[in-house]
């Protein structure tokens, strides 16, 4: 199965990246090349093999579920393209 323009349009939508209509064809071709390359993986017998979740056998550390920082509103908002009255500001979300 290959990636057609429709699939490319859907992927761009899912990825939240605007792709102009004339560019979709090229995108579909490039995605197709990459996906065909990935298809080599179908040659491998993976019966009974667990998908890797952690590359090192080390147990992840746990800590008490408590607040360790906070009260840094100014710092958090400092890099926002638009911040007003202590909040991130965005265009209208609900019609």
């Amino acid at each position: 199965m290959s990636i057609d323009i429709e699939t490319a349009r859907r992927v761009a939508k899912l990825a939240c990246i605007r792709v102009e209509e004339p560019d979709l064809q090229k995108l579909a071709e490039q995605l197709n090349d990459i996906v065909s390359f990935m298809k080599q993986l179908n040659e491998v017998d993976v019966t009974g093999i667990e998908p890797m979740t952690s590359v090192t056998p080390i147990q992840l550390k746990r800590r008490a579920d408590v607040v360790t920082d906070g009260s840094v509103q100014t710092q958090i908002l400092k890099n926002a393209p638009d911040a007003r009255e202590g909040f991130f500001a965005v265009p209208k979300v609900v019609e």
Partner: protein
Amino acid sequence: MSANTWTIATARDALRKGEISAVDLTMSCLTAIDAADELGAFVHKTPDIALDQARAADARLKVGAAPDLCGIPLGIKDLFCTKGLPSQAASNILRGFKPEYESTVTTKLFEAGAVMLGKLNMDEFAMGSSNETSCYGNAVNPWKVDERKLTPGGSSGGSAAAVAADLCLGATGTDTGGSIRQPAAFTGIVGIKPTYGRVSRWGVVAFASSLDQAGPMTKDVRDAAIFLAAMSGHDPKDSTSADLTVPDFEAALTGDIRGKKVGIPKEYRMDGMSAEIEALWNKGADMLRDAGAEIIDISLPHTKYALPAYYVIAPAEASSNLARYDGVRYGHRAALSVGDGITEMYEKTRAEGFGPEVQRRIMVGTYVLSAGFYDAYYNRARKVRTLIKRDFDLAFKAGVDAILTPTTPNSAFGLGEMASVDPIEMYLNDVFTVTVNLAGLPGISVPISLDAKGLPMGLQLIGRPWEEGDLLNHAYVLERAMGFVAKPEKWW
């Protein structure tokens, strides 16, 4: 010789003896940097910070008992968040972003008294093998054999160029699929990617979290040992950081590898491998044998599948990690048209802010994670990853101490020469290095000799997990045996 050409070890000893001040050492680097804009290595210079840090280092050195890196001028890859300073991952989407915090790695370096000269060029979000996807423009290899300008490799291309051109004594790099080792090989320097979990990822802009590791890029193996020790260690802020004692890596450089077993994996002898690479590889093996190591043929049967597995897993993780760049909390936000809502804001912001290669990888990742394809691609790739790691586990279980391979299939190529080929061609640069990231192992590139064109070529040594000391010792033996001392002729 001007002090900027020194190794970290030489400078450390001279600083401790009072033969040079950290301020003078720093000045020699700042002068070299200002004369090297053509290399495109430093993209944000921080001379005022550097001189403040150098003065503080001099005061500390006067008191005595200063750490190894006290007063050592370093370059920092743009991927590391540095408080109050541009930290853009070479992307337009992070233009103007100045973190309110300091990465763990730079915090450790500064606590050790290191001097930061500035931020270094790289591929956008560390996605690339030639430093050509950077929003700052290309970094250029100081090695030049004709009228062409060559790539320093990528993604840590600025770091490699800066170290090779003696603009700094060492630089931080990061390596997700070869981004420390490939540029190190292309510029004739040393670069080590440590075991996954050795160095904290906190404050390093994420690309593919299960593969990313930071490491040092230096002029020789001893410097790599000194620098790596200063970057390493447990960090509660990174849940994948290992709570293990950091050994004295420099003390591990005994130069004695008698009785060690070095594996030569037959699957790395790729079809169409050049006779030059083959000869280089054999020469490296001979040198290790002469030093008393036993050279044995080994098999890593799933090697061929590492690259396709990597190009499923890395984009999948990237698509998730880079979802945070939405024009709300930091960085670029697109100018909106009348009637645009929040969806248009996201889509326009990301289309404007990300370059073509980053967009492509996000979309590949989105595709392999999307409903209906998750099992066919992503889960299958993770299973293949298990098999790739198992190959290495079996080799080490059979007594292998280190594995010797080429670092790259070729020496540095010309900037722009890969522009017309399809993305897969560029991905082939990582063919010998990605396995190491997939298996979480430490890997180091050591410069070996110049090829027929007069460009540096490196060999890669792969070590057992958490055995960076032993790995560095193998590299040290190889380095001493090869005696690579060539430097690029200054043209910039």
